[in-house]
């Protein structure tokens, strides 16, 4: 019987190789992928997030946990899809047009994936049209935007406008975050949620999905 605690610990401590090997062993032993995800992997990332919130973990530790989670998920994804297992939601995430900062976006993407979401990471300098296209083509339910500069923040509003003009605004939730972003700004531009941290982004995304 595989040692699931080993998988949990590997993800929590950021040991991607061990996470991958333990996952391979579990699959070989016939363990259901959804069990691994829901009972061991997501709780491990949730604990990593909790440690980050209380300053026990910092950005490096959180990124490494996310990498270990990703290593396991890559093995599980084909089987999850084949079994019809549903993710918590599909998120298109990116840093807005004109902005090349990605560390915050990477953290949020990692936490969302760890929280059971399917994440389409569009990278940096993402145009409004690209966000729109991803919503249409991939049926993204959440658009998550990051900006680190006051000069690029306006691209968030431009993207929301593009979603409206594209006729999809009503079927997506828009979440925003980044150093210069505030709740007030999020409200002003018509975003559905503002995340102050990578960990709060997961809670926000879950609330957004529940609101549908």
């Amino acid at each position, binding site marked *: 019987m595989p040692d699931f605690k080993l998988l949990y610990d590997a993800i929590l401590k950021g040991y991607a190789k061990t996470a991958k090997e333990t996952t391979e062993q579990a699959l070989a032993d016939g363990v259901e992928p959804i069990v691994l995800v829901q009972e061991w992997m997501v709780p491990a990332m949730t604990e990593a997030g909790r440690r980050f919130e209380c*300053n026990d973990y910092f950005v490096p*530790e959180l*990124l*490494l946990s996310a990498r270990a989670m990703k290593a396991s998920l890559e093995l599980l994804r084909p089987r999850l899809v084949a079994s019809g297992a549903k993710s918590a939601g599909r998120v298109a995430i990116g840093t807005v047009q004109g902005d090349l*900062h990605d*560390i915050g976006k990477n953290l949020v993407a990692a936490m969302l994936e760890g929280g059971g979401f399917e994440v389409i990471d569009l990278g940096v300098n993402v145009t409004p049209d690209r966000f729109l296209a991803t919503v249409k083509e991939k049926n993204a339910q959440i658009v998550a935007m990051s900006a680190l*500069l006051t*000069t690029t923040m306006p691209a968030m509003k431009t993207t929301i406008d593009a979603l409206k003009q594209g006729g999809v605004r009503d079927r997506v939730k828009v979440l925003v975050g980044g150093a210069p972003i505030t709740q007030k700004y999020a409200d002003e531009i018509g975003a559905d949620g503002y995340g102050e941290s990578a960990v709060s982004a997961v809670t926000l995304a879950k609330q957004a999905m529940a609101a549908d």
Partner: protein
Amino acid sequence: MPIAVYPGLALTGAKVQDIVTNATAQCDAQIALHERYRTPFVLSAMDLSVEAEAFGCTIHKSENEVPSVLGRLVTNLEQAQQLAVPKPGDKRTSVYLETVRRLRKLVDHPLVIGGCIGPFSLAARLAGMSEAMELTITEPDLMHTLVAKSASFLTLYLSAFKEAGADGAIMAEPAAGLLSPRSMGAFSSAYIREIESAVCDGHFALILHNCAAKPLHLPSMLETGLGTFHFGALMDLPAVLGQVAPEIVLCGNLDPTSVFCQLPPLEIAARTANLLAATAAYRNYVISSGCDVPPNAPLTGLDAFFNTVDNTIQNS
């Protein structure tokens, strides 16, 4: 002592790209603000891409934004070991050195403060920001190699600022604020301590700026041996002022975006007054912005800030 050069564009009509590529434009913007606010100091602009560009990083430039680093220059230990250390004056570092030389000639003799990135933040740009974070744990030797080379260059660069006539420099080390206090000590503070020993004396001081640092990082930052620190909104200044020796000066921390860009002047005046009141008991505090004030911050906000500071000083 707000870190503000780019808002001077509103007075000179230049673009951000002019400031970061041309010493005349940079001086003009800073002098315009200096004259408007009668500041006792003048600064070179904060631009955290300059040193990385000198090392060979590819830079993204646009008309109205400070340049940023694209991609990664170093991906493995061998590349880090072979990476050449540039010289002061290479690429756009010459713009900032020349800016300081010209500011030194101002007839009212303000304090002239140069600026540079910190060694870990520079090393992170060489390795890629997200990657560098992980490498501090998975490949510490690679990061130490890069930080050591970054510190080597910064020692030379700061010496050049000193030679150009600067009274000091603000060293911006935000990436280190994302690390644990222990890692900050190992990958940042230890190197800054060496830079301080090499460069600082009674005529040249280093101010360590870290807008990502939290109160738990303060002991690691104090390990640098520096005497002046500049913080962002995450640092509870009234609380930590009581924790440092009276000869340690702490500066900060009205947020450049949520305060200077997004609040009306009356509210900025209120926030300034509140912060001054909360820190009134401490002689080792200098009110400032929490980081570089962006180019699009309305001057009316800076007006409100400086008027409130002036009024408080006059009334005290």
